[in-house]
Structure formats: C-alpha cells, structure tokens
C-alpha cells in the first residue's frame, strides 16, 4: 500500500532530518511511529502527502509514485491519503457538516464547493460516519464550539470522507487530555479494522503505541532503528530509541521526552 525508499529530507541548508528511510506498510493495520522530538516523525508523515517536499527518494502510495507529481495529479494522489492533525485543523467558523464535507474537496467542483451542494452519496457517507463517532446531533454546530475530543472526531470523519487508501495521523492525541486521548486512539483503531484501512500514527505515548499498534516503528535522528510488533518493544529497544535525546527541540516545541515518554505520561505541548 505504501512503500518508501531511500527518503531524505533537508530543510534549507540544515542537516538531514530524514536519512535515507526505507519503510513498507501493508494492506491494513495500525502502525505507530515513535521517537523523541526532532526524530523526524512529523516530517516523514508530511512527506507522504507532500505537505513537506522530500529532498530525495521515492514514495509509492497505492501504486503511484507521489514524489514527482504536480498540480492535478498531485491533488488526485492526496485524495487517497487521509490526514488527521495534532491541532485538528478544522475550519472554526464553519459547521461540523461543512468541515466533514470539506474532506470531499478533492472530488467536487468549485461551484459545488461554493454552494455546499455535495452529491447525495457524500451526504449519506457523512451522516453514517458522524453517527459512527457519535456526532449526529452536532451536524449544524459550529466547529469552534465543540470540545477537543469532539473536534478531533470531526477531524477523523473528515479524513475518512476522502475515501482514503491510507490514513496518516500526526500526533492525533497530543492536544487532548489522557481520557479523550485514549478514546480517540481506540476509535482510530476500530475504524482501521472496520474499513480495513492501513493507518500510520505518529505518537508520543509509548504505552498507547504498545496498546493500539500492530506494528511499531522507532525513529531516531531520521533513521529507523526499530521495526517490529508492539510486544517486542522492550526496555532495551526503548533505550536505543530515546537514549541521549532528551532536551532536543523539534517542530512541535518542547515536549516531554526520554524517560517521561517511556513512562507513558501524556506529553502535551
């Protein structure tokens, strides 16, 4: 489903953030990417849908190499890659339904987008998914009046509206409290199974990674140094992933790293 080969990324003239990564994700299941701040987790995820431009290497999603794509073909490739964001990235002043339907923006025309007249199939799908996550009573509620957990569920539904072949989740729970965070993770896990959708999650919380992921990938300084089942993630492996990296800042600011992350506390920025 996803095959990344020799991926490198360098911001400006700085040092390499990703150092020749190679990774293959199969047809289903939840894969967690762990690693301390600055390990390149977010960059890796954003290279896959080209929110961040890779420096070299290839990324093949569902048989299409996305690295060389431009314009319409890039947008079409992005449709099959759903994304859930750490900060929810909802359009605050629009209603829940408009936010959910915005997941179809890669499919509908400009006039439909402007008048909010989406095809009936999209609307059916939106209602089904909103019911699935328990937001059926908030259809016409403005997104900025929802709680954090509700907002992230809208984010999940929006990503699923794209009818994606793969789902990316960039620290989906880092802005949530521990309980809601747990709910969002299990929802993601369940939806992944129900829709047999491969999910790639950046996560800071090692406990959650072990609990919800079928496979865990450990990243350190832009290199994969662990790849295996959650149960194989022992203390020795964690030490290799997190050792000596405490205190490094990364793109999300100073999150708790090292021992704290291993201890499973929820790191909030």
């Amino acid at each position, binding site marked *: 489903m996803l095959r990344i080969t020799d991926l490198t990324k360098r911001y400006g003239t700085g040092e390499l953030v990703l150092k020749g990564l190679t990774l293959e994700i199969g047809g289903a299941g939840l894969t967690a990417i762990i690693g301390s701040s600055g390990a390149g987790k977010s960059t890796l995820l954003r290279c896959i*849908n080209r*929110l961040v431009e890779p420096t070299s290497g290839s990324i093949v999603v569902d048989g299409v190499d996305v690295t060389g794509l431009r314009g*319409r073909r890039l*947008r*079409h*490739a*992005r*449709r099959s*890659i*759903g*994304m859930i*964001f750490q*900060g*929810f*990235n*909802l*359009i*605050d*002043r*629009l209603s829940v339904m*408009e936010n959910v339907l*915005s*997941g*179809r*923006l*890669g*499919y509908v025309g*400009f006039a439909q*987008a*402007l008048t909010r007249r989406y095809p009936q199939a999209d609307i059916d799908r939106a209602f089904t998914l909103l019911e699935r996550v328990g937001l059926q009573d908030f259809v016409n509620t403005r997104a900025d009046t929802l709680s954090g957990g509700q907002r992230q569920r809208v*984010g999940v539904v*929006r990503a699923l509206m*794209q009818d994606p072949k793969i789902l990316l989740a960039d620290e989906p729970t880092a802005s949530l409290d521990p309980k809601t965070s747990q709910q969002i993770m299990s929802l993601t896990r369940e939806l992944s199974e129900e829709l047999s959708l491969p999910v790639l999650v950046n996560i800071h919380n090692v406990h959650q990674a072990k609990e919800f992921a079928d496979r865990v990938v450990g990243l350190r300084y832009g290199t994969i140094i662990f790849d295996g089942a959650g149960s194989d993630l022992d203390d020795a492996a964690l030490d290799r992933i997190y050792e000596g990296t405490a205190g490094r800042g990364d793109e999300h600011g100073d999150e708790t790293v090292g021992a704290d992350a291993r201890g499973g506390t929820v790191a909030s920025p």
Partner: protein
Amino acid sequence: MTLGERERAEPYRWQRFTLAERLGRFLIYLVSAAIVFWALRTLDVFWPWVWSAPTEIADLFGRMTPPDLRRGDEILRAMLETIHIATLATFLSLFIALPTAYIAAQNTTPNGVTLWIGRFILVATRSVNTIIWALLFVAIFGPGVMAGILAIAFRSIGFTAKLMAEAIEEIDRKPVEAVVAAGGDKGKIVLYGIVPQVLPTFLAVTILRWDINIRESTVLGLVGAGGIGMILQGAIDTFQWQTAATILIAILIVVILGEVVSSALRKRVI
C-alpha cells in the same frame, strides 16, 4: 537611630534623569523648538489677522444663529444624495478592493508581479485624498454625482484592500493545510481555508469604510462632485450663513448617526 536622625556628611542628591539623559532630552527639545521657530518665522501669515481671528470667528457664529430651516426640504434631499453616494461608492469599491486584496496579500498572490501590482494599487489609491480624486473625476466626467461616487470609491479601494490583505496574511494556516491534504486546489483553499476566516474582518472593514465615506462625501460638492457640499458652498458664497448653519447641523446629525449605525453593525459581525 531613627530614619530622620541619621547624619551624613553630604545631603542626599536625587535627580530624575542622568546627565546624558538630560542632554539628550535637551537636544530633542532644542531641535523641536528650532523647527517650530523656522515654521513660524517663514510662514506667510498676516499677523494682525491672527489677533483678530477670535473676534471674526465669534462674529461668524453670531451671523449663523439662529439656523434658518426654510430650505429644509432641499437640504434633506441633498443629505440623502450624500448618503447614496457614500453607499454606492462603498459597494462599487468592493468589486476592485476584493481582487486587489487577493493579489496584494503575500500568501494568495499568484506571483511577484501581481504582488507588486497589488501593492501599487494600494499605495496609489490610498495616498490621493478623496477631494483630489474628485477634482480629477470632475475634470473627466463633468460636475455631478458620477464624479463623486468614483472619487469616494477610488479612495476606498486602497483603505479596504489594505486592511483585507492584512487579514488574509494573518490567517491561521492549519485549515489551509487540511484542505491541501484533502486534495483541494487553489480555488477550494480560498473557499474553505481563507474565506471563512477573513469574512468577519471583511464585513467590519466595509462597514467602517462606509462610515468614513459618509463623512468624506459631505465635501465632494465643494469641488462640484455632488451631495450636500454643493448647497453648503452655495449658501456660503451667497452669505446665507443661517442656512449654512442648518446644513452644518444636518451634516453633524447624519455623521453621528452613521457612526452609531456602523459601530452597532460591526459589533454584530465580529
């Protein structure tokens, strides 16, 4: 030993500023004084007029009272015309201000050339005062409301577009990122990522400009571009000071009403 009894060889000294600070301040005062002195000395002012100015002004106000209400109908019509000019001009200016804001904002402009064009329109329309635009349009389209509407509209473009462009540049990037990730193109990024965020500001700016435009359109008539200024000029030229007073009061009422309406509307949209 209490505080007051302490003995010292020297008395305490305290000064608000250090020597350097005082010198700096002195220098600033000196330069300012010199500029003012230069301005006063070389300005072409006939001083006896300055001393008689208070009497003259008092005399003028004396001639204005009581206000003459006999031409009330005419004044009312002209006042309506003034408001129409302001409203139509504000409406008209939006058609140019919106695209100008789009190309003058760094994050939406298609390329460097359009950014430069946008910035140029902002500066050119904003720096030329309404009354000067009116002079130009009266020369082109002849005296009348058309020149007035265009003058107000042109002056508004720069103001509205500048504030709108700033609003576009200050948007939250996150929703835009979400639309991009969903495969949306530029048009949909604008529709879903930008428009919802900037719409309240756009409305508030438009209402604010309408309020300013009412004030501005009261002077158009002084250069022949329509509105209440025409009959004000007429009344002043024929020394009908009591009628002029009525017109001034009418302007005062309309301007204050405009401000009240505008601030009430702006509170509602934000």
